């Protein structure tokens, strides 16, 4: 995907300590905890769906392709 120089994000604007503080506040809040729990379920479900959708059933392998 082509990136133009003017679109480049500016670096050096945030310190990790500031972000870590925000993460702490978020995760320790009731809403943050709920979001983490929901994210865990969503992450598991999404990954499982991909793997189950990608499965090929044995009977599909023996269907003849003949056009």
């Amino acid at each position, binding site marked *: 995907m082509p990136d133009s120089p003017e679109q480049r994000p500016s670096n050096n604007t945030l310190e990790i300590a500031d972000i870590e503080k925000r993460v702490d506040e978020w*995760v320790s809040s009731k809403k943050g905890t709920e979001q983490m729990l929901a994210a865990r379920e969503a992450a598991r479900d999404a990954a499982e769906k991909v793997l189950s959708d990608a499965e090929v059933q044995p009977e599909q392998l023996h269907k003849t392709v003949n056009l």
Partner: protein
Amino acid sequence: MSTYEVESYSISTLGQLLDRYSYRGAGYSQGKSHLSYFDDYLTAIGARTIVIEHPYTDRDYLEDYVAYYARCHASYDRRCARLHFFSAQFEKDAIERMLEAHEATLDQFRSSYLGFMVVRPLPSTVIGRTCLVTYGNIGRDRAFPSAGIYKANLLGVPLAVCSLPFQEQDTDVAACATSALWSVFNATGRLFQHSIPSPAEITKASAASQRPANRTLPAFNGLSAAQMADGIRSVGLEPSYVGVANLDLLLVGATAYLRAGIPALLLGEIIEAIPGSPQLSRGHHAIALAGFSLPKGPARAFTGTNGTLFSATSIIRLYAHDDQVGPFSRIVVHAGAAHPLLTSWPDKNKTRGHVYFRPEILLVPLYHKIRVPVQSIISIVVSLDEWLEPARLAGIIQLKQRIEWDVGLIEIAQLKAFIHGDKDIIPDFRARALRDDMPRYLWQIDASCDGVRRFSILLDATDLLQGGNVVGVLPYDKNACLAVAALARNPAVSNYIKSTGNRGLETIVKWFADNAAQL
């Protein structure tokens, strides 16, 4: 002595030539849908002149001749004709000037060369090995990563074309599955250095351990996916299946392999749905996916209304070698439609626009060391995205839009060349990546937002399935990477992520946590 003739290109001339060099001159070309497809294609690439070379010995046809046609009572010829196509207009005297090595004429031949088509001396299935230039990119961005350089020599003049070979199926020695395998092997042979078997050899190798219901040759019974997989094993590659009834999985999976130049076989059902007529299944078919339109516009949510955004879901066309249609035939993608893949097949009324492909299996021929399949990578990405999106919505990751992901297999030399040329990677990490000892094949996962790349994750494609081994990350956006690192370093978040049970996800976030100080 071979003869060389020159004709102006037209559909009727092409039809006459196909007939003339078929068995006893009765090629039935006018009744075949291929002729109109080739006319559309050759017109689109600007064909104006045909040079006819006859006789011409074609290796693939000769192998099939020895294996099958030679034992027929009828005296099928063992030699073919070859039609060379040019975008320049010239007359027969150009051949004389070419013999005299007239420099301007040689330049004209070389610069206007569009490729060739072998005409087999058979009664009906006359279109043999065909290498034509791909569609141009004017006005549309298309990618044909599986194409390579194919050389032809005309009167001592070397000519070259960037293409992927195509041939029409011969129902005697090859069914559609064989033709698709043959096209795919032409690309994988170049990539992984294996010999390229002829269609008859492919049919026999595919049916060697799992016998078809009827006889092997004539090959009118076709092949199953399991037999095609045996055909892939016969050239020393490993077949990898992906179920692709899910359109998004097809688009993301096929393009991920195509980016490394590996064309995949797409197997599915051909459906004819003419408005006002009952829907009809025409049977099962196999095609070789050879290219795609570059993703443009907004990505769709993967497999749902609130899912991960993959760039590949905005692809609007796939290009396939479909032996019932022609080379690089268009498959138009209409996501959300009842039949999302519109083929270039004509319907029973000889009209295009009503025949669809219902995808079932993507069969990918892989070098044995490419062990981690694309579905494992996609499952890691969707899982990661489900963690990052709430953090973005909570303002931790300060991006205005949801992250858009792009997945592709890449060979180390290609990757290092890309890194070398990309000065937007945070400098220390760029230098480190160039020095890093990396595996031969990697999965590259690009994370972008607002059309700007924020980071690229590199996973070892040759690793153990249980490994989830991150080779590294190429950081572009320091703030976004620091935010992921801060998330990963938080003990509570880290425990939540670990409890997801996704090893790939864990190792990715660990990389951010471990490298936060250097960002």
